[in-house]
C-alpha cells in the first residue's frame, strides 16, 4: 500500500519547498529591496531630542550685558501619572479653580497625549516657584522644568535688540533648510534676528529610543550619534548703555528718534525710537497680552523710527548741499551771495530766508552759521544746472548720485532688519509731477536745496551724514556689533562690510574746515547757541522740517568735539517745532553724556525739563485717553456690578417671582421687558447695571 503512493512523498516535498521558497522571496523583497522599512523603523523608534544651547549674550561697549539668560521654571504635567495628585492644594497654590485645572488637563491630554509631559503653567514667578517646590511631593506627575529665558537688566534698547519668539509656520517655510522645528525659538527682530545664527549656537541632538506610546526607553546606540550643544556666541556692540538710557529718557513723551554714531568706527553708540517699550514685557507669561497691546498702539512702540522713519531733513541738509558744490568745484569756501531776505533767482518760486541783514551769506561759513536759504538755493541750482552735464535732468542725476554716495536715498546696511532707504526721488517721479521729460528745471525742485521737497532721510542716514562731515569725507557703515566672540571666517565675512572705509568725497581739508567752522558757529552764535556741552566745542546744524500734517518736525544734527570728533548725532522730534527747541537739547545731552561720561550738575534740571516736555500729537493723546477711559469704565463697571450684586441680593429674594416670570418668557424679546417694567416697579439687577453704566460720563 505504501509503495503504491510513494511518489506522492516527492510531491509533498515539492509543496513544502514551494511554500518555503515563497516565504524566502518575500523576505528578499522586504529585507533586501525595500529600504523604506528601515526608515519607517527609525521614524517609529528614534526620538530626537533637541538640546538647546544658551543663546549668546549681547554686551555694550563696556561689556555690560544688555540682555542675558535667566532660568525660568515651567510647571509640567504628565497627565497619566497625575491621578493621585492633591488637586485642591495645587489649585490653591496656583490661584485657579478646579474647573480650570480640569480644562488644562484636558488640553494637555489633547495636545500631547496623557503619557507625555506638557506645560501646565509656563514661566512661574520666583515666588510661585518657591512655594511650589516646597510642595512638589504632594503632586505626583508634576515636575518643575527649567528653561532659559531672556532678561534685560537695563530695561533698554528694546527695538535694537529685538525679541525671540516661537517660530510659526510661515517662519519655518522661509527658513526651510536651517533646521528649525516647531516649538523652537528664534530671533524675530533687531539684533536677535540679524545675528540669529551666531546667537543661537549649535543645537545638540540626543537620540532616544521610544516605545509604541512614545515613552523614552533609553539612549539610542548609547549616545553614539548624539551631538553636543554648543552655546551661542556673545556679541560685543558699540552701544553705550548709559547714553542709550539717557536718550530714551530724554525722548520720553515725544515721538521721534535719536541716533549717535562713533564716526571713527561707524559703531552706533545709541539708537532710540520713541515711544519705545521695556523689553522685559515681551518675556514672561504676560507676553501675549503685552504684545497685543503694543501692536494695537497707534504710536507704534515697536516701530524703529531711527531706521524706518522718513523725515525731510530741512536745514540739516545744508552742509551736504555745500559739500556737493565744493566737490564739483562749483563754489569755493569764500563764495558768497547777497541775500536780502529770500531767494528770487527763480522768479516764480521765492524761497524766504530768516535773515535780511546784508553779508550774512558772504561766505560758506557765514551762510552755514546763519542757515541762509538763499545761499543754499543758489548753490543747489548751481549743482543742477552744472554746464558739465548739459541739462537739468542730467545735473539732477549727478546730484542724486552724490546723495546716494552720502548715504541718502539708499539703505546703509545697518545690522538691523528692515531698514528703510527713505527717498531721494527719481527723475521719473519729477517727470510725472511736472508732466513730462525736460519740463522741469532747477527752479521747479528748488526747495530740495534746503532739504524739503520730496527728499526724506532716516535719522540713521542723517547721523551717518554727520559722520562723513566729521571725518572729512569718509565713513564706516553704521553698525552695532563690533566683534563676535570666537569670530570665525564666516563672521569676518559678515562683519567685513562694517570694517571697510567708504571714501565719499575728495574735498580738501580747507573746504571741510569752512563747513566745520560754519557748523561750529551755529553752536556759538547761531541757532544752537543755547546748547552747550561743558568743556567741548562742537559742530551742529539745526533743522525745522515743514510737516504738512501738523507742527514742524524738530531736527538736530551734530558732531563733537570739533577737532577729532568722537560722536556724531542726529535727533528728530516729530512736531517739536524749531530744531534747537526740542531736538537740540536732546542731542546736546547725548553728546555730553558720551564725551564727559556724566551730565554736569547745571544740566540736570534741564534734563528733567526736557524729559517732561510732552510732544505727543493730540490725536494720539486722544486715542490713549479713550483707551484708558474704556479700561477705567470697565473697571468701574465691574466694581459697580459687584456692589450692586451685594445690594440686590436682598431685593432678589423679593424679586424671585418676577424673575421667574421673566425666565419663562422668551429671553431678549423687547415685549417682555416692557411688560415687565409696567408690571413691576422694581428694577431687575440687570437693568440697574445698565443704568449705572449709562449714567457714567
Amino acid at each position: 500500500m505504501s509503495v503504491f503512493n510513494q511518489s506522492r512523498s516527492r510531491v509533498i516535498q515539492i509543496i513544502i519547498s514551494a511554500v518555503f521558497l515563497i516565504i524566502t522571496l518575500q523576505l528578499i523583497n522586504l529585507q533586501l529591496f525595500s529600504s523604506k522599512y528601515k526608515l519607517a523603523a527609525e521614524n517609529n523608534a528614534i526620538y530626537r531630542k533637541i538640546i538647546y544651547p544658551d543663546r549668546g549674550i549681547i554686551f555694550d561697549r563696556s561689556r555690560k550685558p544688555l540682555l542675558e539668560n535667566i532660568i525660568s521654571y515651567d510647571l509640567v504635567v504628565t497627565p497619566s501619572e497625575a491621578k493621585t495628585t492633591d488637586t485642591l492644594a495645587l489649585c490653591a497654590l496656583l490661584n485657579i479653580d478646579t474647573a480650570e485645572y480640569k480644562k488644562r488637563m484636558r488640553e494637555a491630554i489633547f495636545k500631547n497625549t496623557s503619557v507625555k509631559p506638557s506645560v501646565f503653567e509656563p514661566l512661574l514667578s520666583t515666588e510661585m516657584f518657591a512655594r511650589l517646590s516646597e510642595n512638589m511631593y504632594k503632586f505626583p506627575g508634576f515636575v518643575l522644568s527649567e528653561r532659559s529665558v531672556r532678561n534685560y537688566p537695563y530695561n533698554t534698547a528694546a527695538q535694537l535688540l529685538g525679541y525671540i519668539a516661537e517660530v510659526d509656520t510661515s517662519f519655518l517655510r522661509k527658513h526651510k533648510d536651517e533646521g528649525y522645528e516647531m516649538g523652537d525659538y528664534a530671533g524675530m527682530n533687531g539684533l536677535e534676528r540679524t545675528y540669529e545664527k551666531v546667537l543661537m549656537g549649535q543645537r545638540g541632538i540626543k537620540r532616544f529610543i521610544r516605545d509604541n506610546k512614545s515613552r523614552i526607553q533609553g539612549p539610542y546606540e548609547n549616545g553614539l550619534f548624539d551631538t553636543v550643544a554648543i552655546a551661542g556666541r556673545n556679541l560685543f556692540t558699540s552701544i553705550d548703555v548709559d547714553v542709550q538710557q539717557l536718550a530714551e529718557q530724554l525722548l520720553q513723551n515725544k515721538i521721534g528718534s535719536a541716533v549717535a554714531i562713533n564716526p571713527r568706527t561707524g559703531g552706533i553708540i545709541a539708537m532710540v525710537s520713541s515711544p519705545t517699550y521695556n523689553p522685559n514685557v515681551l518675556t514672561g507669561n504676560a507676553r501675549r497680552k503685552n504684545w497685543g497691546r503694543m501692536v494695537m498702539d497707534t504710536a507704534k512702540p515697536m516701530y524703529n523710527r531711527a531706521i524706518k522713519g522718513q523725515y525731510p531733513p530741512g536745514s540739516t541738509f545744508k552742509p551736504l548741499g555745500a559739500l556737493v558744490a565744493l566737490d564739483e568745484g562749483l563754489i569755493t569756501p569764500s563764495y558768497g551771495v547777497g541775500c536780502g531776505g529770500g531767494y528770487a533767482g527763480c522768479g516764480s518760486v521765492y524761497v524766504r530766508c530768516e535773515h535780511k541783514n546784508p553779508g550774512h551769506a558772504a561766505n560758506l561759513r557765514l551762510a552755514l552759521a546763519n542757515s541762509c536759504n538763499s545761499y543754499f538755493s543758489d548753490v543747489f541750482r548751481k549743482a543742477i544746472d552744472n554746464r558739465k552735464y548739459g541739462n537739468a535732468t542730467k545735473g539732477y542725476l549727478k546730484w542724486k548720485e552724490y546723495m546716494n554716495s552720502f548715504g541718502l536715498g539708499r539703505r546703509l546696511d545697518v545690522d538691523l532688519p528692515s531698514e528703510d532707504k527713505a527717498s531721494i526721488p527719481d527723475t521719473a517721479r519729477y517727470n510725472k509731477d511736472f508732466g513730462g521729460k525736460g519740463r522741469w528745471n532747477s527752479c521747479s525742485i528748488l526747495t530740495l536745496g534746503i532739504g524739503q521737497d520730496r527728499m526724506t532721510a532716516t535719522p540713521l542716514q542723517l547721523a551717518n551724514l554727520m559722520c562723513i562731515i566729521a571725518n572729512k569725507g569718509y565713513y564706516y557703515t553704521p553698525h552695532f556689533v563690533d566683534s563676535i566672540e570666537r569670530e570665525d571666517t564666516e563672521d569676518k565675512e559678515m562683519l567685513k562690510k562694517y570694517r571697510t572705509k567708504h571714501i565719499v568725497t575728495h574735498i580738501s581739508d580747507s573746504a571741510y574746515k569752512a563747513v566745520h567752522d560754519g557748523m561750529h558757529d551755529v553752536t556759538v552764535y547761531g541757532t544752537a547757541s543755547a546748547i552747550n556741552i561743558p568743556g567741548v566745542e562742537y559742530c551742529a546744524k539745526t533743522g525745522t522740517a515743514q510737516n504738512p500734517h501738523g507742527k514742524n518736525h524738530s531736527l538736530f544734527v551734530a558732531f563733537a568735539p570739533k577737532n577729532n570728533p568722537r560722536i556724531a548725532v542726529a535727533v528728530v522730534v516729530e512736531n517739536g517745532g524749531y530744531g534747537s527747541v526740542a531736538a537740540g537739547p536732546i542731542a546736546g545731552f547725548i553728546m555730553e553724556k558720551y564725551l564727559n561720561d556724566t551730565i554736569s550738575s547745571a544740566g540736570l534740571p534741564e534734563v528733567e525739563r526736557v524729559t517732561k516736555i510732552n510732544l505727543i500729537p493730540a490725536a494720539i493723546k486722544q486715542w490713549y485717553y479713550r483707551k484708558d477711559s474704556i479700561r477705567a469704565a470697565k473697571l468701574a463697571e465691574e466694581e459697580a456690578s459687584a456692589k450692586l450684586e451685594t445690594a440686590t441680593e436682598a431685593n432678589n429674594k423679593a424679586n424671585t417671582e418676577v424673575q421667574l416670570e421673566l425666565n419663562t418668557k422668551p429671553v431678549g424679546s423687547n415685549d417682555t421687558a416692557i411688560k415687565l417694567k409696567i408690571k413691576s416697579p422694581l428694577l431687575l439687577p440687570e437693568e440697574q447695571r445698565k443704568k449705572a453704566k449709562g449714567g457714567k460720563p
Partner: protein
Amino acid sequence: MSKQKSVSQGIDTTVVWLYAILVSIGILCIFMVEYRNDGHWLQSFFNGKTSYSKQLIYAGVCAALATFILLTDSKLFTAFANLFYAFGILLMLSTFALGKNINGSKSWIPLFGGFNLQPVEICKIFTALALAKFLSRQETDFSKLKSQIIAGIITLLPAVISIIQHEAGMALVYFCFFLVMFREGLPPTILIIGFSFVALIISTLLIEPNTLAIILTVSVIVTIYLLRKQFKRSRGLLTLIIFIWAACVGIQRFAVPFIFNNVLECYQSARVYSAFGKDYDCSQNKRSAKKSDKTPKKPDDYNVRQSKIAIGSGGLLGRGFLKGTQTRGKYVPAQSTDFVFTSLGEAFGFVGCLVFLLIYLFFLFRVIQIAERQRSTFSRVYAYSVVSIILFHIAFNICMTIGLFPSPGVTLPLISYGGSSMVSFTILIFILLRLDADRQMVLR
C-alpha cells in the same frame, strides 16, 4: 538497565536535537522581545515572572512530558486514538460552557495557577491519531469515496467547532490533513480544485471583477477552440468546460463578494483585503452594519504594517542582538506570541531568517524521511500529519508576519510563547518519535 535501554533505543536523535534547537531559539526570541535594559536579565530568566522564564518552565514541563511519552508503549496510541479524539471534541465543546474569553475568542479553558488551555491546539494531535487510526484500519479502502468522506469529517469536525469559536486561523490548519490524505491516495483533482479555488478567490481580490470575467471568458473560448475536435468524441467535455466557466464566474461575481460582505465580519474582510494590498470598504459589510448602527470604522493593518517594518528594517544582516528598535519599542503587537518571527527578522536580518527557515525545512524533510520508513500505515499517516500541521503553522504564521496572508492567529511551532502551543507540539513530535522507535512493529 534493560528498561533504560529500551527508552532511548531507536529514538531519532536528529529530531530531538532539532526540537531542542528550535525551543532554544524560541526562548531567545521571547527574551529579545521582553528584554529590558535594567541589568537584571539573568535573574529574571529564573524568577518565573517574565515570558521567557515562563517559557523556560514550559520547556522543562515539556521535557518531562516528552520523557513520559517515550516511556509509554506505542500500542497505547493506536488503542486509544478514537477515545482521545472523542475526548478532544468533548473538550472543544466544553469551551462553550467553561470557556474563558481571551483576545475575543472563547476557546480557552482556565486551568489551575492562571494557566489556560486551548483545546483546539491539543485536538490537532487527537485528530491526527484518529485519522491515522481510521486510515490504518484493515477494512478501510481509501480509494472509495465513502472512506474519503469519513476521513474528511474526522478532520473537519474540530475545524467547524473552532470557526464557531471565532478561531478561523486554527480552523484553516485542519485543512492540512488533506495533504496527508493526498499522500494516502486521495485523488489529486481534489487538491487541484482546492488550489484553483484559492487562486480564483485571490485573483478576485486582485483584479477588477469585469476584467476577471472577461479573462475567464476569453480563456474558456480559447480552450473550446483548441479542443473543438475533441467535442465530437465526447459531448460531456464541452458541458464540463461551460459548467466550470459558469462556476468560476459565479464565484467571482457573486460568491466571493457575498462571503466578504455577508458572512465575514468587517475586520476579517479588511484583514484579507489588506493582505493583498487592498482597502476593504466596511460600509458594504452587512454583518457589521447589522451589529451596530454607527458606520463600521475602517480597521487599519497596524499589526501587519509594524511587523513588516520590523522584518524589513533587519536588512541583510539584521540590526544586531537586542538592538532592534521595533522590538525594544514594542511596536509590534503580540510579538512574543503570534509575531515572534519579527524579532528574529529584525535582529538577524535575511541571513538569520534563512538559517532559521532552513532548520525548519530540515526538520520537515527529516520527518518525511521518518514517515516513509514506517512499516505501519498508522505511524506513516501520523508522521505525515505532523509534517502537515507544522508546515501549515509555519506557512500561516510567517506569511502573516511578512504580509502575504491575513493574520489568523496561528502560532509558530516551538517558537511562539505559550504553554498550550508548546505542550501540544511537544506531544505531537514525541508521539511520533515513540512510534518511530517501534517502526519495526506493525501497528493497527
